[in-house]
């Protein structure tokens, strides 16, 4: 009796599900929709430039946006605009930047193409406001301004040691780098702090000649503000994962390595800070993640035009 009831119940339910599914199969649940509301055909200029009194050249990168709807371009990478008119104005003088597409002897790009002018011709000075204007046929002209912040605080760097375990769980002593500076009390400060590790490795090639190669990478890349804690004393400890006590290598030792640590402390404006913190957390479109809106000060376009003032300290490890 019990079995009959269960069988009847199963038939009843399966009939219902089957009917629902058959019905559902006749209709597509995914449909393309119109996107006029999004105005995706409206392309914009994308402009990037970070200026500083410490730079030798001013570089301005000019791209265009990529559509998300409709026919998509076949090319990958940035859509550099080569026919733009790019001018920079400091309130007293306006200069035109020249398009530069650096290539090597084989015709390969050595650097991304950009618009440039030497700071000898057009110096970047503390406290001054600079206005960037970019125009190009088929695009709405864009403009942006920024002011050059005051000098960055004095940066000190020194090494320290810390303990860790190696893969055999043996205690080892490693080397770290401590960087410190003090923020000014009078205003909210925005800093970018980078540590660049540069190694030059010397070795003897198969023919017995001394050769060398260089490697560079960021050990630290921080964007900081003292908002809410003005005049903060910053102390940043960076673990280098290098043994503290290595054998002193003579000049003729094979695989001899020279290690140079460079610290860059940038006094930036708020936009520089906001832009980079958003970019650092950028995760892309995801249904379960809140979309990130990257800030811009390019009126009529996208990108960033920002200024900074930089302190640099170098340490060579023994």
């Amino acid at each position: 009796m019990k079995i009959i009831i269960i069988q009847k119940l199963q038939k009843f339910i399966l009939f219902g599900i089957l009917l629902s599914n058959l019905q559902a199969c006749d209709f597509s649940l995914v449909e393309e929709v119109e996107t006029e509301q999004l105005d995706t055909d409206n392309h914009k200029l994308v402009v990037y430039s970070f200026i500083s009194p410490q730079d030798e050249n001013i570089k301005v990168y000019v791209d265009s946006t990529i559509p998300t709807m409709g026919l998509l371009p076949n090319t990958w990478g940035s859509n550099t605009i080569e026919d733009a008119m790019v001018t920079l104005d400091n309130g007293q003088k306006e200069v035109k930047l020249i398009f530069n597409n650096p290539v090597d002897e084989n015709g390969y790009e050595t650097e991304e193409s950009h618009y440039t002018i030497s700071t000898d011709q057009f110096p970047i000075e503390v406290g001054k406001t600079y206005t960037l204007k970019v125009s190009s046929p088929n695009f709405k002209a864009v403009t942006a301004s920024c002011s050059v912040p005051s000098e960055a605080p004095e940066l000190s760097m020194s090494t320290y040691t810390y303990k860790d375990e190696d893969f055999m769980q043996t205690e080892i002593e490693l080397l770290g780098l401590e960087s410190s500076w003090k923020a000014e009390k009078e205003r909210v400060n925005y800093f970018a702090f980078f540590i660049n590790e540069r190694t030059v490795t010397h070795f003897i090639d198969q023919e017995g000649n001394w050769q060398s190669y260089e490697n560079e990478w960021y050990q630290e890349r921080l964007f900081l503000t003292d908002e809410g804690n003005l005049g903060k004393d910053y102390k940043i400890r960076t673990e280098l994962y290098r043994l503290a006590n290595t054998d002193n290598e003579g000049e003729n030792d094979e695989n001899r390595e020279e290690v140079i640590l460079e610290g860059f402390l940038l006094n930036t404006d708020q936009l520089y800070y906001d832009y980079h913190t958003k970019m650092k957390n950028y995760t892309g479109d995801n249904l379960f993640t809140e979309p990130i809106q990257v800030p811009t000060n390019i009126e009529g376009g996208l990108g960033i035009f920002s200024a900074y003032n930089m302190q640099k300290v170098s340490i060579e490890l023994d």
Partner: protein
Amino acid sequence: MIKKTKSVLFVLLLLISLKSISQNTPQRYTISGYVKEKSSGELLPGVTIYLPSLRTGTSTNAYGFYSITVPQDSYEVVFSFVGYEAVKTQVNLEKDTEFNLDLEPSLTKLEEIEVVAEQQEKVSEQAQMSLIKVPVQQLKDIPAFLGEKDVLKVLQLMPGVQSGSEGSSGLYVRGGGPDQNLLILDDATVYNANHLFGFFSVFNGDALKSVELYKGGFPARFGGRLSSVIKMDMKEGHKEEYHGKAAIGLISSSAVLEGPLKKGKSSFLLSGRRTYIDLLTRPLMPADSKGGYYFYDLNAKLNYELSQKDKIYLSGYFGRDRFSVKDMEDSDYKYDAGIDWGNATATLRWNHLFNNKLFANTAFIFSDYEFGIDVSETYQGRDFMLKYKSGIRDFSIKHDLDFLPHPKHHIRAGFQSTFHTFIPSAFVLEDESENEFTNEKEIYESLETGIYLEDNYKPTEKINIEAGLRLSHFVHNNKQYFKPEPRISAAYQLAPNLSAKASFASMNQYIHLLSNSGIGLPTDLWVSSTDKVKPQSSNQVALGLAKDFPDKNFSLTLETYYKKSKNVIGYKEGATFLVLEEGPENSEPVNWEDNVTSGQGTSYGAELLLQRKYGKFSGWIGYTLSWTKLQFDEINFGNPFFAKYDRRHDLSIVGIYKPKKNITLSASWVYGTGNNYTLAKREYYAREHHFQNFPPYIQNVSDYEEKNNFRAEAYHRLDVGIQFHKKKKRWTRTWEIGVYNLYNRKNPFFYMPSTKYEGNQERGVLEKITLFPVLPSFSYRIEF
């Protein structure tokens, strides 16, 4: 200054109240008692007791008790309640009199309903505004998604209440989010009211006695949420004889059994529901791999009448959802994983009658919501075990006093104190192959307390005022918040059956729901206010007109509201709380406080409700015109934006027609402006600053221009249902056939950018994903 003025007004009101009590009047006597349903003995809340000669009256409280004190005389007293035959009786009041009454449901003689003026509870006579009462019988008659009757989905059809995504049981009340609704079942808070990702709610209509939704003008006895209070009370169980119901539907079956434990003294009610897709599909799965999903609900209630003055109730709810996967590919490998979540609540209530004017309710309440993931794996004799849990657990004590000193006053006072334990994550990992063993548990504790005093004061025949003050207090670690919450509602009778109403309510919310999916996922997490995350608060003003058409059995309300909320929780850009996506085993601990930001919300609008609660043809038309804007300093560059569920127009038409005793026809049509989505307008390569010889960091970034920049197409849908009832020898059976989305409207569930190829050329498109096409459903029900 405004706060001071409010306090002074409140004190004045109390003084006036006390003055009127102390006035010299002729000898007064009290008539009091309980009103019950005739056959079942179920106590009836909200029954109107009216004395036509004095043109005054009162109503039963939540526990069916009433009391009215009037001068010595002989009176005609009318007892009326929606869905019950009105009773008129003559009372010769020469001393304090206890008068208990049984009301008979008018369902039994549906066709012969004689509508009398007193039969309907009149909205024009109540000070309370923004209150919607849904007759439980109507819940059963309205067509439902896959035949599953759902309280929250019926509430979504009311003006001022909007649904979120397609199929979701989340409620958006006057611009507030689902986190801002206080759902209480027999005094216990239910934290996650969703089964199956929000497609069904946990409330089983068969076990419910009453459902009330407050959208504004909140009485001071309620607190803790900004936008709404949904108060549900479970049936107590038949005191005289055994009754039951059983239903078989497409995806679930349910049963209810109720009856006396000791005739006339105590009773019980048991109800359960379980889905069975997992059981039916199991035989079709391969032998070495099993999986499935189910949910179930259990409701139970016991009550015992110790004496005329003391009653005890014990009620509870327990529900669970579970997804599971089992894999046994070979003897070397076994895999067993599951996700489960659910609520458990328990309430012990004691009703005590101190005297014929003073009624007390004391309750001890437990509520628990838990979400868990468990994974166990055995490979070549080595075990891996992972357990993840999050949740919230409450222990509360509540005491309410109802004092009815005079027909002009109904004074309520009380307190509730809740000890919250939040577990944002508890994590156990045992990995023998990696020799890794972790046992971490994060716990937050806080104490939330509210005390209140309110008076429903009727100074003249035309004026009805309900004023109160709630003092709320919250402590978490060493951080304390103390907030006064003044509340006032007033009605002025412009003409017979027509009144103008106004209300003001100040609310605070000390606990927050982290859920950026907005579709009611089990991973949604309740968290405490801290020193960093401030309590949310709101002030709401509402104005309205209420008109009764007693001869036609209609009521019409028109309300406008303006609500300003502060410290509303939003999710910072890039924030995600979806544990399943990251995987608890590899995600770094997310400090939720760093992921949220607070801002302000503004919502305003107008609502119209034309309702016929009872009769051969019943139903309602509800229309809402509304705006909801949000502003967060850290979102959308600080600019205000329309909320995702900002809905300009929302229309519901619900009709239930009973042409014969054995047939019920029903239909509902809904229309709503589309939701807002944030979609990329274009993309670009964003560069970061770089030094030295490094190439620039370049990322492909989307340009949205502003948050919620895309308005989806309008949502509309028609559902229909037909029920055939037949009285058999021992029971009544009902066949129900329903069709959800009758004309197969392809309503958007979400939008997704995608690409397609046209030859060698790639084309970007926007795709609309629809969840439910036309879906028929069937169910079979018996009642005895």
